[in-house]
C-alpha cells in the first residue's frame, strides 16, 4: 500500500515539475526568439497565463466525441511517455523505458491531435493533418537509424541502462557513431518541437495553424499543457540518451543528489532547446515534400552511417 501511495505521489510530483519546467521552456523559447528579433518579448510566465486564460474560456466548441477524446489521448500519451523516461535518479517506470517504446509514445500525441482535427471537418485542419502525417512518416527513417545506432553501440534498448553506461564511458556524443546519430536525432527533434524549418504542420502564414485551427478554449488549453510536457519529455529524452543524463551520487543526502541531478539535467535540456530555437529563428520553412525529401536524405544518411559505424 505504502509503495502504491509513494509511487503515485512521485508520479504527481514528476508531472507537476515537468509541466512547470515545460511552461518555462515555452517562455524561454519566446524570450530568446524575441531577443534574436531585437525586441523585449513577453515575461517568462506568459505561457502559463495563456493556458489559464484558455481554460477559463466561457464557451467551448466541440465537434463530437472523437474531437474531445483526441485531445485527452494526446495528453495521456505524453504523460505516459514522461513516466518512462528516467529523470535523474527518480523514475516511475524507468526500468521498462525502452527506446522504441518512448519514441513511439512521444510521437503518438500528434496522432491524437490529428484525430481531433480531422473530426472537426475544417479543410485547413485536414490539410494540416496531411502534412503532420507526412512529417511523422518522414522522421521515422532517421529516427529508426539513430535508435539502431544507440542500441548497437550499447547493446541494450533500455534508456536507463544507456544512461548508466554513459556514466562510465562518457557522453554518447563523444563517440563518432553516436555523434552522427545525435545530429540526426536533433534534426528530428526540430520537427517534434514544431520549429522552423520543419513547422510545416502548423505554418501560420500558410494554413493558419493547420490542425490547431479549430481548437479553442479548453481544448487548446489542454493542448498547451500537452505541449509543455512534450517539450520537457523530448528534451529530457535527448539529454538522457546523448548528453549523459544525470546520475549524481556525490552528496550524502539523497534529496541533495536528486536536486543536483535535476539541475544538471535542466542545463542540458536548455542547451538542447537553444539549438532548436536558433535553428528556428534563422531558417524559413520547408514545404512538406521538400521536408520529406530532406529527412529521407541527409539525416537518414547521417544516422545510417552512425548505425553502420556502431555495428562495426
Amino acid at each position, binding site marked *: 500500500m505504502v509503495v502504491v501511495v509513494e509511487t503515485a505521489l512521485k508520479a504527481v510530483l514528476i508531472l507537476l515539475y515537468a509541466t512547470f519546467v515545460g511552461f518555462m521552456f515555452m517562455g524561454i523559447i519566446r524570450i530568446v526568439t524575441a531577443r534574436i*528579433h531585437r525586441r523585449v518579448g513577453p515575461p517568462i510566465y506568459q505561457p502559463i497565463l495563456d493556458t489559464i486564460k484558455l481554460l477559463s474560456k466561457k464557451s467551448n466548441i466541440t465537434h463530437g466525441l472523437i474531437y474531445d477524446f483526441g485531445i485527452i489521448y494526446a495528453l495521456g500519451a505524453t504523460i505516459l511517455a514522461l513516466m518512462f523516461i528516467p529523470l535523474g535518479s527518480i523514475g516511475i517506470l524507468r526500468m521498462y523505458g525502452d527506446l522504441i517504446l518512448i519514441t513511439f509514445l512521444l510521437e503518438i500525441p500528434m496522432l491524437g491531435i490529428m484525430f481531433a482535427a480531422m473530426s472537426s471537418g475544417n479543410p485547413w485542419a485536414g490539410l494540416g493533418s496531411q502534412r503532420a502525417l507526412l512529417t511523422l512518416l518522414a522522421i521515422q527513417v532517421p529516427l529508426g537509424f539513430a535508435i539502431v545506432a544507440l542500441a548497437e553501440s550499447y547493446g541494450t534498448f533500455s534508456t536507463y541502462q544507456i544512461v548508466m553506461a554513459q556514466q562510465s564511458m562518457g557522453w554518447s556524443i563523444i563517440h563518432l557513431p553516436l555523434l552522427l546519430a545525435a545530429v540526426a536525432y536533433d534534426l528530428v527533434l526540430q520537427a517534434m518541437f514544431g520549429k522552423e524549418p520543419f513547422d510545416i504542420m502548423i*505554418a501560420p*502564414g*500558410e494554413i493558419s495553424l493547420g490542425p490547431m485551427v479549430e481548437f479553442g478554449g479548453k481544448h487548446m488549453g489542454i493542448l498547451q499543457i500537452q505541449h509543455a510536457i512534450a517539450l520537457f519529455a523530448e528534451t529530457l529524452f535527448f539529454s538522457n540518451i546523448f548528453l549523459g543524463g544525470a546520475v549524481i551520487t556525490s552528496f550524502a543526502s539523497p534529496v541533495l543528489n536528486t536536486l543536483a541531478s535535476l539541475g544538471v539535467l535542466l542545463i542540458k535540456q536548455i542547451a538542447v532547446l537553444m539549438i532548436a530555437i536558433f535553428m528556428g*529563428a534563422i*531558417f*524559413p*520553412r520547408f514545404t512538406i515534400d521538400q521536408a520529406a525529401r530532406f529527412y529521407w536524405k541527409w539525416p537518414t544518411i547521417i544516422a545510417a552511417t552512425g548505425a553502420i559505424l556502431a555495428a562495426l
Partner: protein
Amino acid sequence: MMVSQSELVKEARENGMDLLPLDKDTYELFFGPQHMATENFSIILKMDGHRVVKAIANPGFLHRGFEKLAELRPWHTNIALLLRICVPEPDVPEAIYSMAVDEIIGWELPERAQWIRTTVLEMARVSAYLFWIMGLSFKLGVYTAGQWAAAYRERLMALFEQLTGARVYHIYTIPGGVRRDIPNDAWLRRLRDTVEYIKGKLPDFDHLVFENYITFRRMEGIGVMDKKFALAEGVTGPNIRATGVPYDVRRADPYLLYPELDFEIPVLEDGDALARALVRRYELEQDLYILEQLLEMGPPDGPYKVQDPKLKNLPRFKVPAGDAFAHVESTKGDFGAYVVSDGRNKPYRVQIRGPSIAHGIRVLEQLLVGARIADVPVILMSLDNCPPDIDR
C-alpha cells in the same frame, strides 16, 4: 434515432446548406480574407489534395468607391482621399494625382518642390520595400528578418512624421508643390544617417532571406512567367523586370528629377518568384543610392510650391477643362492616374490605375494553378499584390 447520411444531405440541401465537397476529388478552400497571408483579399481555391486546381480571385473587401467620392470633393481635398488607395506607399497616389493636375493646369514646378517630391517618393519606395521584406519573410517563416525590417522602417516613419506631420497618411504632395517646407537641416542630416543605417543593415537581410538556402528552395521555379505572358497580362514594375523586360517608368517616361539621377535597373530573365525577389532586393539598394545622390545635390533654394494667387482660396480653386494621364514607378509597378476636369472646382472623373489590378487577378489566377498550397503565400508576396489598389 439514427439518421442516414443521405437524409442529412437532403435536409442540408433543402435548407440551402450544400457545403459538401465539390466532387469526389476536389474541395473548396477559402483563402482569406481572414488569413495571415492575404491582407484582406480573398482567393477561392479548388483544391486537389495540396495542389491548386483552380483559383478565383475575389477582390472588393476594401472597395469604398474612391473614384465617385473624388468627384464630389474639391481638387486639393482629394489628396486626403486618394492616398488611401495604396496604404503601404501613400505618396504614390498623391504624386500621380498632383502630376496630372499640374499637367492640366500647365504649372512648372519650382525646383525645390521637385527635389522634395523626388525625395519623398524615394523614401516611400524604401519604406515600401522594407515592408515587403517583412511580408515576404513572415510568409516564408523566417520571422527574424521581418521583425528587423519593420523596426528599421520605423526610422523612415519618424522622418516622414517630422517632414509631413503624420506617420502613414502624409497628405503632403499637393497640386503645385508640397504642403510644407523641409523643417530644418537637422532633418537632412537625419535622413542621411538613416540611409547609411539601412544600407549597413542590408547584408543582414541577405544572410537571412536572400542568401538563405531554404529561401532558394522555396522560391525557385515557383510562379514562372515568361516575357510574352507578362506583356499580354499588363504586368509592370519589378515583376516584368524579372521576366527580362527593362521597363521602368522612371526611365521610360521620366518625371521630376529622375533624368538627372543615376541608377541601374535590375533585369533578370527567369521570371520566377526568386527572380522577382532578387530584383526587388537590388532596387532597394538602388533607391538608397538615389537618396544619397539627392542628398549630395541638396535641396535647391526657392519656393516649395507654385506661387499662384488662386491657391489662396482652396475651396474655390478651379482647374481648366482638360484631361491628363500621369504615372510613376511604385514598388508594385506602374501606378497611373487619369484625371478629367470640366473647369469646375471638383474633378469630373479620376481614374486610378493600380498595378495590382493586373497582377492580382488574372496573373495570380493563372500562376496559382498547379501550385502547392504552401506556394500560394509566396506567389502572392512575390507579386507584391496590394489589395486596396485593386478595390479602390
